[in-house]
């Protein structure tokens, strides 16, 4: 079972209280872009065995979106953070460096 602490309301929410929002930190590719880039933006997603950054919504709770960094193998959660950012915070990245050396590949 996955427990994520919602940074908006502070609840350590069980997975069934949350709605998944897929891969985090996607960069939108818009009008005028190459077809291949647009296809990537729409359809291509990472599916790593290990560290993954995701969007989640506290749907049966405060209703707000947030980000989570976790390991897809062990379900270890490295941290959750605000939805209003385009990249993971430094402290979470350093924590992952510590626990999964070489994960940045």
């Amino acid at each position, binding site marked *: 079972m996955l427990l994520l602490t919602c940074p*908006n*309301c*502070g*609840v350590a*929410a*069980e997975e*069934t*209280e949350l709605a998944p929002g897929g891969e985090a930190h996607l960069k939108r590719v818009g009008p005028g872009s190459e077809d291949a880039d647009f296809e990537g933006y729409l359809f291509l997603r990472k599916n790593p065995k290990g560290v993954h950054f995701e969007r989640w919504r506290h*749907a*049966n*709770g*405060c*209703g*707000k979106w947030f980000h989570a960094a976790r390991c897809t193998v062990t379900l270890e959660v490295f941290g959750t953070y605000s939805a209003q950012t385009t990249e993971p915070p430094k402290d979470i990245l350093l924590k992952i460096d510590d626990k999964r050396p070489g994960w940045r590949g």
Partner: protein
Amino acid sequence: MSNAVSALPGAAHAGIASVTEMGLQGMVTLRGDHAEIAAAVKKVAKQDLPGQRRINGGLGKGVAWMSPDELLILCAYEDAASIVEKLDKELKDAHHLAANVSDARAVFAVEGPAAREVIAKLCPVDMAVFEDGEIRRTRMAQVPAAFWMAGPDTIHVVCFRSVARYVFDLLATSAAEGSGPGFF
């Protein structure tokens, strides 16, 4: 004038805890920056701004923290419309939304020494450490709901009116005679 009725007038069940529909309750949703709306809440609802996941007061007179930009004001059913009006007046220069949601909700009381167990069977919430003055928005079986302690052995549950019958039946089943795990 139409005659307002609550979702399940008079619905009641007795088992390891009693489940009672609480009739018409006034509720106003207020959205906006908490710091900007605090003064208006104090003036109109006569309540201090609650901290994260806290509720001040209760049914009929209270304010609950719903999210970082949302409060729920509890009042008498007849007062909800005028509270919206007063809030809009107080907050005319602030970005906000005040809406009378009284008729969109249903409220139940779960009462008795096993009240926590009735809720614990239905929600992913640790009822062993659930405190007075805390409000929890969560999932109750298949629908969203919120609840708080209204007394040592009393829990007030709020859900959407459209699922009132479902939630009442859930609570009644969870409170069935002889079904208490006796955990708390």
